[in-house]
């Protein structure tokens, strides 16, 4: 048996350390450490609640808009304000643009470059994959940066800039859209669709959504050579490396639901475990700090009552991350959870057969891309120039409210309590706080800690690559985790 400390993990957002125990060339136990503390909840204490719209996006440079949406939703729940349809549409477009760009960036820049590593040079697919995905030098990197930057022109039009916009307000969007701008938005979406269809999928977006089962996915993949598209390249190496047997979890999957329009979410809310759907009860969410470098909260608390105070004693835990639980249960979040809860046929079939694992997390993210882009096209068509985009309402002096939404990497919630017009408690529970949570008071490890058990880790391997695949399959965002 041996123990190793792995890090820093780059190509994740923020700083991460993983301690593993190895027996017989496999991980037998894992501890996930978030080595940075940021202190946003302390900074927000005593502020005007509306200033959360400035501070909270800056929790994270990659989920910035999701943070804005959660903060604006929390404020709008306090104000009891109803956004005009244009406001909902504009916010959905901005939010979807960020989430889609995140999936795209994760696949091309964060996840795939690991398969270009020299350790795989004996594999028959390596030369092609390395030429395409090698970090910085691969043919994909420059190409996708161009496509991504052009797609982000949606932010220039609707949000002023990205990241860290203030256009998302409790009562809608601060940016009205004129007819010619609606046309520009349509053209940006059309151009990005072209890129996805040509390079990522090698098929139409509609064609991708017709794939309804693992068998159909296999047939679709085999119908053309792997070099036909980047998704095929991934599926091909995934079946060679058996990525569906790597990084497995069988915990509850959860989605808060996202992209509301006229009272209905595009992707629904709920939880899923052992083949059964259960509605989400937000009051069952709690955060446990028994293994965190935090103090001031002797037992798990709902975020409304939660406390975030750093503990200077290094012996008090092994991470700055809290352990969120739903009715005491460990929960995994992300595209895979969102698509399971929403009943996406391919993901239901894949997860039904092999659970949550490295391959299925990546497929769920990629299959979400056509779903989101098609919705964006529809929202854009629905925009009504000359109609209102935003309404305003007074903020009560005394209130509490929550904003629950989905970032690319999973469920994000803001809980705020206001007294005398000031924030007396603001608690954020971020997606990677769920996925990379430490052990709780019952010593139950978090999702990544469970997923890593059984992962191959040879004594000769300095940086076990399989561990890297498992970690990055969650698309972690550490700066959010330790806000």
């Amino acid at each position, binding site marked *: 048996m041996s123990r190793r400390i792995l890090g*820093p993990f*780059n*190509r994740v957002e*923020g*700083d*991460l*350390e993983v301690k593993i125990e190895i027996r017989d060339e496999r991980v037998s136990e894992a501890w996930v450490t978030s*080595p*940075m*503390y*940021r202190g946003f909840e*302390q*900074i*927000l204490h005593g*502020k005007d609640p*509306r*200033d959360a*719209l*400035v*501070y909270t996006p*800056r929790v*994270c*440079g*990659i989920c*910035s808009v999701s943070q804005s949406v959660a903060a604006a939703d929390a404020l709008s729940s306090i104000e009891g304000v109803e956004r005009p349809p244009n406001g909902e549409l504009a916010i959905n477009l901005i939010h979807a643009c960020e989430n889609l760009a995140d999936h795209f960036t994760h696949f091309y820049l964060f996840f795939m*470059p690991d398969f*270009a*590593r020299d350790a795989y040079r004996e594999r028959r697919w390596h030369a092609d994959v390395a030429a395409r995905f090698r*970090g*910085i030098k691969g043919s994909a990197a*420059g190409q996708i*940066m161009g496509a991504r*930057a*052009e797609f*982000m*022109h949606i932010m*220039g039009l609707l949000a*002023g*800039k*990205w*990241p860290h*916009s*203030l*256009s998302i*307000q409790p*009562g*809608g*969007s*601060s*940016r*009205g859209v004129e007819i010619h701008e609606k046309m520009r938005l349509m053209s940006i979406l059309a151009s990005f669709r072209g890129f996805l269809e040509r390079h990522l999928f090698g098929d139409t977006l509609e064609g991708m959504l017709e794939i309804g089962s693992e068998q159909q996915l296999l047939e679709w993949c085999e119908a053309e050579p792997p070099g036909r598209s980047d998704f095929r390249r991934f599926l091909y190496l995934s079946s060679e490396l058996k990525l569906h047997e790597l990084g497995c979890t069988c915990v509850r999957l959860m989605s808060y639901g996202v992209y509301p329009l006229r009272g209905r979410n595009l992707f629904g809310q709920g939880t899923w475990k052992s083949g059964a759907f259960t509605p989400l009860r937000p009051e069952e969410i709690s955060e446990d700090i028994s293994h965190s470098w935090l103090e001031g909260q002797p037992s798990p608390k709902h975020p409304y009552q939660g406390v975030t105070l*750093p503990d*200077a004693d290094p012996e008090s835990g092994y991470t700055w991350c809290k352990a969120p639980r739903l009715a005491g249960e460990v929960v995994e979040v992300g595209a895979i959870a969102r698509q399971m809860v929403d009943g996406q046929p391919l993901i239901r079939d894949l997860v039904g057969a092999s659970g949550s694992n490295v391959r299925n997390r990546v497929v769920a993210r990629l299959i979400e891309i056509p779903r989101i882009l098609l919705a964006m096209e529809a929202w854009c068509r629905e925009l009504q120039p*000359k109609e*209102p985009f*935003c309404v*305003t309402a007074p903020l009560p002096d005394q209130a509490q409210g929550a904003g629950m939404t989905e970032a690319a990497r999973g469920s994000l919630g803001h809980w705020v309590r206001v007294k005398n017009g000031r924030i007396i408690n603001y608690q954020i529970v971020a997606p990677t706080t769920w996925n990379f949570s430490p052990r709780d008071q019952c010593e139950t490890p978090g999702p990544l800690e469970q997923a890593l058990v059984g992962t191959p880790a040879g004594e000769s391997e*300095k*940086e076990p690559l399989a561990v890297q695949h498992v970690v990055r399959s969650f698309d972690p965002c550490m*700066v959010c985790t330790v806000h």
Partner: protein
Amino acid sequence: MSAADRKRFNLLWLQSGGCGGCSLSLLCAESPNLLATLEGAGIEMIWHPMLSEASGSEMIDLLNRTMAGEIPLDALCIEGAIKRGPKGSGRFHMLSGSGRPMMHWVRDLAQVARYTLAIGTGASFGGITSGGDNPTDACGLQYSENRRGGLLGGKYLSGEGVPVINVAGCPTHPNWVLDTLMHLAAGGFRREDLDDWQRPRSYCDHLVHHGCPRNEFYEYKASAQQSSQGGCMMEHMGCLGTQAHADCNIRPWNGSGSCLKGGYACINCTRPGFQEPGHRFLETPKIAGIPIGLPTDMPKAWFVALASLSKAATPKRLRSNAHADHIVVPPSCGKRDPDE
């Protein structure tokens, strides 16, 4: 001389206690894109947390070899504030896998860098992370807000005899970073290319007000009163564009944007201490109905006199459009041909 023969300019990028937003913004560079820009300027990214393949011990080795002088370090870019707490230990941010506080790595690498750049307002001055009571004792590389000092101390000069270059902004525009790096790589960068806060004058000699599409509303003090309205946001909505140093309305963000174009106020994010304005961000503080924060180099009495004069002369078109979220009264086209 071909591009390959030219001497490479080595760039090392590390993320300290920030949000990563400046790196994400950098990925939005275009015409040409980030990689093409670096390639064209002969800049070699020896490591970047979002882009490099090398991970874990390979990266720690690279840092050690750089500190030993085996790898020349032309530019050290630090993104995010430096976390000195708790109690000066730096334990609020340990570089993972190294068992060492990030602030020690940054301090040591800064000693071997030809140029040291603080990317973003956090790394420059402390920024958002040092808001409130500054729970993590965060600071910038050479400033704690507007006080010189910070992590490296007021006297610090990098190898080329230049203080820390503060590419401030929350986040930074991709080209603020890239233009500065290209200037450094091309040679000829001088202390005089930085302003009093050590920010590149290439973008900080401008005000956000320059090129603001709402300038006509500003001229007549036709002011927006609520979010999404088209009028000037200085009088009621907290806009600091007339005081903020940056070229946001000259050099567009994400194709065509800026904060003002997005319908919300400039919060002066390139300034030390922007995160604690002392009032609500999106509301203009006033005394006796007059905004406190007037344009920095304009005599107050003149401003008040001109404002009341221009208010009296505001055309109906601007008065109407200032309170709507789209153009309700277009500019007049003049008289039509009576025979038409």
